[in-house]
């Protein structure tokens, strides 16, 4: 059915074109003149400008798990436009900022890149001013303040900052887009966050385990295996997560390690 036929049916309902064809015609002529005077496309442009939306979402998910002397950060590498079209299969969404600080983001990739640049600049300046590297706690606070600085035009990202703190322990800081900060043992963000968090709650947080039950120790091997499995599970059921897993492992006193694993591509 064409738009015209469709509209005619609707008009007939409204104006009863059969019994009052002249009335319907007159109404149409008035409407036509009205459109010529103030066309929709002009006002629509104004409306569009009022609803100007500078944000987009590129999908994907990311998570981080902190251990006694290590932290595991993982993310998928797919970039998606409009939740449907795959536009890149090998994007790095984990940004190592120094030897002991790793930033990982989900959400609007443009803001993620800008945020990384901002933190890198601050870290560089800190190194210049104080002749030492920033601790992850300080960097976490710095990021929180920078996010809240843009309270009314936020960076549209779900950021996680992970690293090794000054006591050599793993640290994970989780943020909302406007800088609410929380130090957690593990965190997830992005499209598959609702799937990752319950899995980590169960396997890392042991929230469902009864009191007397033995809890497996969170070794580096266990943490990486869990995180890999978490992403394999998410790729099964979440459409914007896939292609490959990028793992970044930071251990106290060791350089940062990267690991890449395949995920399904469909």
């Amino acid at each position, binding site marked *: 059915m064409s738009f015209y036929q469709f*509209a005619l049916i609707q*008009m007939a309902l409204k104006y009863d074109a059969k019994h009052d064809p002249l009335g319907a015609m007159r109404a149409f002529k008035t409407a036509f003149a009205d459109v010529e005077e103030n066309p929709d496309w002009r006002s629509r442009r104004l409306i569009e400008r009022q609803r100007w939306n500078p944000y987009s979402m590129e999908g994907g998910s990311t998570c981080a798990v902190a251990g006694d002397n290590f932290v595991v950060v993982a993310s998928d590498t797919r970039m998606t436009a409009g939740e449907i079209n795959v536009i890149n299969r090998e994007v790095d969404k984990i940004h190592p900022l120094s030897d002991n600080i790793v930033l990982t983001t989900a959400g609007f990739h443009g803001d993620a890149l800008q945020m990384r640049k901002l933190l890198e600049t601050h870290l560089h300046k800190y190194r210049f001013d104080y002749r030492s590297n920033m601790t992850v706690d300080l960097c976490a606070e710095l990021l929180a303040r920078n996010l809240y600085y843009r309270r009314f035009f936020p960076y549209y990202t779900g950021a996680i900052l992970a690293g090794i703190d000054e006591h050599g322990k793993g640290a994970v800081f989780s943020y909302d887009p406007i800088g609410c900060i929380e130090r957690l043992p593990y965190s997830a963000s992005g499209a598959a966050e609702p799937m990752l968090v319950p899995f980590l709650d169960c396997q890392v947080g042991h929230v469902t385990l009864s009191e007397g039950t033995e809890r497996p120790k969170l070794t580096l091997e266990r943490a990486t295996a869990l995180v890999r499995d978490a992403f394999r599970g998410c790729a099964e059921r979440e*459409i914007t997560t896939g292609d490959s897993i990028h793992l970044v492992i930071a251990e106290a006193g060791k350089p940062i390690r990267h690991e890449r694993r395949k995920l399904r591509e469909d």
Partner: protein
Amino acid sequence: MAAVDSFQNGVLQCEIEPNGFDFSNCTRNCALARMGAAPPRLNSTGTTIVAVTYKDGVVMGADSRATAGNIIADKHCEKVHYITDSIYACGAGTAADLDQVTKMLSSSLRLLELNTGRKARVITALRIAKQHLFNYMGYIGAYLLIGGVDPTGPYLYDVSANGVTMARPFAAQGSGSYAAITVLEKDFKIGMTEEEASNLVQVALHAGMHGDNASGNSLNLVVITPEKTIFRGPIVPDFCNKPEPIESDYKFKTGSTTVLKKKEIKFDIVESMDMH
């Protein structure tokens, strides 16, 4: 008068230079919209369906992923629907609508076949589908590719939810159709063999499943020839396999769940049945 002049100039321009878009209906459509006519609704259809006619038959295929938002609701859903023994329909759009429309089509065509004692024609299926869909003004979100072979030859039709239909030598529908149609446009030839046609449909489906987040998992094919109908599937393409299996096992030891309350119910067995 100026408006009329510019309008006529516009028409002339269009006739002289047959390039670009034609906006001549914009004002009319806006006027109709202001009179209360709702513009046609656009549905997002998370699917890839492809169909191709060849020398003496039709090959149709679909992926098997059903999505609810960004979540995969069903990994192995059947989008190639049976209409009659030699007519099938691939569906994109609202899953429930597709199920019901294709069920309705297959039952009414079976009745027709029984009443007339002849095989139903594809055009009949098309007409029933479009009249039904037109009645519901697009609110039944069924986008179909109806294909089949009848005594007058092989046919393929593209049916939109609002009732628009087109006869096509090849077609793709759904969110993966952009990727799939590129393959069809490149490699489709008139008068292909059955093997060429079914390969082309598979490659087109692969393109859709790979490039579109809302399509994937596996594909189903149906090859309709004048003699027989062959259904093939589910076929899992290489890139749809899990590259690595899950590495740990997630079995909970007995006693992992906290016991909050215990209650014992004693009862007598009054009667028992042999359950075999």
